[in-house]
């Protein structure tokens, strides 16, 4: 069962991933610009986008940044949130827990879009900065979920036994507690990745990170939406690719997790 799921996930995630990573190698020179939002014809088999560029070409070009920025941001968010949440769950010092978690609540209290809007217009970061920023708004959220999921596991006798053995924090936190809450975190990471994708695109629309006319699937979805009824492909194709990317990724994740748990 997990095997078939594994292949299914791999296929679903493979299409957008291959397009994203190899696509840029196969695009030719940009052709002449056509009118915006035309449906097919004139060599544009997926039509043209909001400024008359070939949609297919944009699709080929637009995956890399999405995949990289979103993956980087999600990974980054977890790189920070995991230790934070785990430390908070494993410590017995209330002050340390409060010190770690309460400042995050401050970040949480600022709506993420506002946060991005504000920070972005003040510091005008590039793509790397954007990944950082998107990660930043995701950290508090992720950290809380990590902590909540880990708190129970952290109080089990098994952890006490590990402490008794003088086990390193790392082994306790990641090796045991992290593993015990793996499924929950995987579920969260899956949806977070999707959330991050669209936050990146929204940020692009607000003029942060990726240029607002960049070849970027998420940006394409956002910018071409005005023409949804004239030229659906410009929205539907990148959106489907993103759906496939996140869905396939999660399927893959689930399957791997299941397989590991079975053994």
């Amino acid at each position: 069962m997990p095997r078939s799921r594994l292949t299914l996930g791999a296929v679903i995630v493979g299409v957008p991933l291959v397009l994203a990573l190899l696509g840029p190698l196969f695009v030719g020179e940009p052709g002449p610009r056509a009118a915006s939002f035309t449906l097919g014809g004139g060599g544009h088999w997926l039509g043209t986008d909001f400024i008359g560029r070939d949609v297919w070409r944009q699709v080929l070009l637009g995956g890399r940044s999405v995949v990289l920025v979103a993956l980087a941001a999600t990974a980054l968010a977890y790189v920070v949130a995991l230790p934070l949440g785990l430390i908070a769950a494993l410590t017995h010092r209330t002050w340390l827990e409060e010190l770690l978690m309460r400042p995050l609540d401050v970040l949480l209290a600022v709506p993420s879009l506002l946060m991005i809007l504000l920070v972005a217009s003040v510091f005008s970061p590039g793509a790397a900065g954007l990944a950082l920023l998107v990660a930043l708004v995701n950290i508090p959220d992720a950290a809380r979920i990590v902590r909540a999921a880990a708190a129970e596991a952290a109080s089990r006798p098994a952890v006490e036994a590990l402490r008794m053995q003088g086990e390193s924090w790392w082994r306790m936190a990641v090796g045991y507690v992290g593993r015990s809450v793996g499924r929950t975190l995987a579920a969260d990471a899956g949806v977070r990745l999707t959330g991050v994708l669209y936050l990146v695109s929204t940020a692009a629309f607000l003029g942060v990170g990726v240029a607002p006319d960049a070849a970027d699937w998420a940006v394409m979805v956002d910018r071409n939406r005005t023409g949804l009824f004239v030229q659906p492909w410009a929205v539907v194709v990148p959106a489907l690719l993103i759906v496939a990317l996140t869905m396939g990724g999660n399927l893959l994740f689930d399957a791997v997790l299941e397989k590991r748990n079975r053994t």
Partner: protein
Amino acid sequence: MTAVTEVAEIKDLRVEIESRAIVDGVSLRVLPGKVTALVGASGSGKTTTGLALLGEYPAGARVSGDVRAPDGLVGYVPQHPASVLNPARRIGALLGDIARYQVRGLPRARRREAARERILRALSLAQLPDPAAMLRRYPHQLSGGQQQRVVLAQALLLGARAVVADEPTTGQDVLTKRRIVDQLAAVARQGIGIVLLSHDLEVVRTLADEVLVMRGGRVVESGPAERLWLAPRHPWTRELLAGQTQFSAGAPALQGRPRPVLHVRGLTARHSRTTVLRAPELTLRAGECLAVVGRSGSGKTTLGRCLAGLHRDHDGEILLDGAPLPRSLRDRTRDQLAAVQYVFQDAKAAFDEHRPVLDQVARTAIRLRRTTQGEAMAEAASTLTTLGLTDDLARRSPHRLSGGELQRAALARALLARPRVLICDEITSGLDSVTRRGILDTLTGLLRDRHDLSLVLITHDLDTAALGDRIAVLDAGELVEQGQAREVLTSPRHPFTVSLVETSVRLAAGTRP
């Protein structure tokens, strides 16, 4: 032939995992009002057989033979009661769920009252003191023995036609054990068939009508209890029965007065606001074995956990070689950690369910003694073998070991630290007499060989306690008596100790109620 039909029956059961039979050719009949007992060494397949009566088998098992499970519900008191108590629900809710279906027939208005009444009755039948107060507690707020009795209360409340009780008395002191035995006998009198899986021969002898002796997954001998005791046929049965000891020995008093290793001063321990332990003065000397006895819930585990640095919420001082130990084990150095080791009462919960036991055991040496991975593994394997766990068993993950096997693995894990003070919390409670003797021998051997090792043996079992040089007696959180083992056992001073010793003697005499 009598008219009674059996409640359940197993014929020629064979359970095979990875083409290794863990139960082979077992047949068994559960009769109403009768107690059928399975005895046998640890790992002999008792739990597996018991679970088969519930229609449950280990994952990936190949099963053959006939199992006719009882119709209707079956009460089940598992070997590790903590695991079947939902951590997020109060005791009241856990019992309430069962009671609610019992009172369905009543008019709506009276249901609540009736349910509560039944719950309280079940709790007191299961020998839990102050049942009303228990209702509001979460499982983790109970002592090991209390948890076990709550699970028993569930089974009693259920009103099933059959009950499978897997080591229902392991965690109980003699007084409680005696009442539980009475209770189970009363249950049987109501016509309920009981399957008792136990290594505790006193209990088996008191209760059982029919006894099956198991070894390596096979039934080596079976028959009515009396016959078995009087004329055991199989050598193994004989060996098993011979394992019974009366707290005869009581090691000779140590020569001279060795220096104290561990010294406790003015200890009071709390759970939230209630004080559960008061120990004004307690000393453990080098090479000594101190037995801590007391009824279930008297604070034995709490004492052990305080010493081990697992229970931070206490006042007073704990000195190791005259230097105070940090209250939390987080603040203890590696050497301090290695010096004081604790073996958990609930062995199952204390293992990481995902990693092989061997690896987990070996980590102690790597972390606390800085040995290499290879050395640690070798040492772990040899220690486990001494304790009777084969290499094959050691490479499995914890949930594929039997209760007794896990308990021994836990002991091995602590031993690998080469501790100076080893605190064993009911480590022999899950073991049959033969294995128990083996373990206790190993421990005394260690004491003999390694002069710097001292033992704190937490137990409810006076037989085991008799092994100690000295005995400390806890009652309701108070340290009521301590002294040389022989003295305490032969001429107890405190009334509580007196009753403890008396009951113990009586139970061992095997007077059937």
